[in-house]
Structures are given as structure tokens and as C-alpha cells.
């Protein structure tokens, strides 16, 4: 590849990475907005109850406790979201490091589940029997998995989801994504953009499917620094 084309490709990957970061940030902040809005309404409900008491109406302690618990639940939801976003933000602190594969994939799946819910689907990551560590770029792995998930969501059968299984041995780690498709999309293949992005890691991507299911494997060779 010529230096000019290589430079263009690097710029393209940079913008794609920025786009990916933007998409995750937008999704999480949208959800955080919902959390804050809900807490706002719950505190408004407490004000309504306080007004009722001042007006001489009776309000049960159970009612107040219930609202308090609901506020706590939303606060916990918000805390989890900010922890996940913070973890995502720190994924680019180091270009390559020794990572727990399940932690990376579980985080990006949770961050992407909002997109899946819009399609009435869910992303489920199976915990591997043994922890899998690999020397890789956590940001790039998350980016590739995100792009794969986005490409799969339009074909997911409604009310099902995408299952992710992680396996690893001395030579490679594999992230396998599978789904039941709705049968309307005959283009059951891996997008060239995904292969190109995976090549940056470097990793390879294989896809296979039949009339009911589609599988994509992201294969990351073991790298010893």
C-alpha cells in the first residue's frame, strides 16, 4: 500500500474510532438523562405527598418508603452507568495491555444493550469457564465487537438476541457471536469494513450461517510482547 493510501486508511480508522466513542457516550448519557429525569419525578412525587400531608390528608409510611427505595434503585442504576462509561473511557489509556477478555466484552455488551433493546433484542455474554487474559488493545476489541453487533442487530429475530461466547487457548482467543435471524436478510456475510477494522488488531473474522442462525467469530491470535 502506498504511504498516501496508508495515511488515508489510518485517518479513516481514527474517525471511525471517534465515531464509536461518540456513539457510546451518546447512548449512555441518554440513559443517564432518563435516570435523572426519573429521580426528578420521584422527588416531585415526594413533594406532592408532603403537600397532601400539609392539606391534612393521610399518607402512609409505606408509600414514602417505597418512593425512597425507588430513588435508591435509580441512583444505583446511574452509578453503574457512570462506572461502565468510565471503564470504557479508560480503555484507550494504553494502546495495548494484558486484558481480561470477559470484562471487556461484558462492558461493551452492556453499553450496547440499549441499541439492542430498541430492536426488542438482548445481548448476553456467557462467562467463560476459565478467565481469559490476552495482550491486546481493549479499545479496538470493543470497537470491533460494537461494529459487529450493530451489523447483526438488523437481522436478529424479534424478542431473541445475540449470544456471545468466549474461548481461548495457547494460540488464540475467540469471541463468537451468534443469533437467530428473521430470515428476511439473505446477506449473511461479514462486512468488508469489519474485516478491515479487525485487521488493525490484528484479528480475523469468519462468518457462517444457515436458514435459522448466523455466527461470527472474531479470532485474535495470542501476542506475547
Amino acid at each position: 500500500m502506498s504511504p498516501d493510501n496508508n495515511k488515508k486508511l489510518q485517518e479513516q480508522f481514527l474517525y471511525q474510532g471517534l465515531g464509536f466513542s461518540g456513539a457510546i457516550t451518546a447512548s449512555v448519557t441518554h440513559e443517564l438523562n432518563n435516570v435523572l429525569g426519573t429521580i426528578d419525578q420521584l422527588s416531585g412525587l415526594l413533594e406532592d405527598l408532603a403537600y397532601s400531608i400539609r392539606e391534612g390528608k393521610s399518607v402512609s409510611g409505606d408509600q414514602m418508603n417505597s418512593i425512597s427505595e425507588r430513588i435508591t434503585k435509580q441512583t444505583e442504576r446511574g452509578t453503574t452507568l457512570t462506572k461502565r462509561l468510565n471503564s470504557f473511557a479508560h480503555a484507550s489509556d494504553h494502546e495495548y495491555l494484558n486484558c481480561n477478555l470477559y470484562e471487556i466484552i461484558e462492558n461493551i455488551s452492556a453499553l450496547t444493550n440499549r441499541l439492542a433493546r430498541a430492536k426488542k433484542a438482548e445481548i448476553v455474554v456467557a462467562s467463560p469457564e476459565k478467565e481469559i487474559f490476552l495482550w491486546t488493545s481493549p479499545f479496538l476489541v470493543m470497537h470491533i465487537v460494537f461494529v459487529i453487533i450493530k451489523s447483526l442487530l438488523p437481522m436478529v429475530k424479534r424478542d431473541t438476541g445475540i449470544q456471545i461466547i468466549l474461548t481461548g487457548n495457547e494460540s488464540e482467543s475467540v469471541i463468537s457471536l451468534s443469533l437467530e435471524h428473521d430470515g428476511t436478510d439473505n446477506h449473511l456475510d461479514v462486512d468488508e469494513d469489519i474485516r478491515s477494522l479487525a485487521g488493525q488488531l490484528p484479528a480475523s473474522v469468519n462468518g457462517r450461517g444457515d436458514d435459522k442462525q448466523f455466527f461470527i467469530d472474531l479470532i485474535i491470535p495470542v501476542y506475547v510482547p
Partner: protein
Amino acid sequence: MNSFRVLFVDDEEELVSTLVDRLEYRSIHADYAINGDIALEKLQREKFNIVVVDLKLPGLSGEELTHLVNKSYPNLPVLMITGHGSGNDGSFEKPNGVYELLQKPIDISLLIEKMEEAIKANEPG
């Protein structure tokens, strides 16, 4: 204004159930649905004076639902709520068939004001 019945459609169940509770304190009868399919079922079974729809819904989108409501219930006004964009920067335009677009977080007084306005605007005659 006389009391009216509102149907909220939003997958943030805790948010809409709280809004329902708050409106009941204000003698406004309210119900909710967490997606468009359930909303359409409720509209078939019960009479509502206004529908408040979130832009982002699972399955049938807020815009698609609005279109179906406009088609099947032409005198039923629709308000839309969204967390998209920021404040009044106009980053998102009011979709067709929607009386008003309100930003989250929702101010309940403003919501009631806009609901009453929309119902009045759609009264026959």
C-alpha cells in the same frame, strides 16, 4: 378544564408510572404503555383524550406510533417527549402529526399546560 385521560408511551417504566401517580394527585387520569404494541391495544380498549409518546421506543418507534395513532384516531392529539438534543437548540424537529415536542426532564406543570392546550385545539367545532 375538566379532567381528561392521558396515555403515556415510554419504555422507562419507572418514569411513566411516577408521572401517572403525580397526575392522579392532580385529578388527571393517566395510564401507560411500555411500547407501541401495548399502546395500540390500550387505545382500542379504552378512551383517552391525549397520548404522550417518547421518541425512542423499542420495536415500533415513537414516530411510527404517532403516524398510526393519527391514522386510526384523527381527533386524538399526540405530544412527544424526547431526551434527544439539548434544551431549545432546535437540534431535533417536531415530527409530523405531533402537537408539541417536549424535552426531558419533564416539567409536570408545563406538561399539563401543553396537554390541555392540545386537547382544546383538537376539540371539534
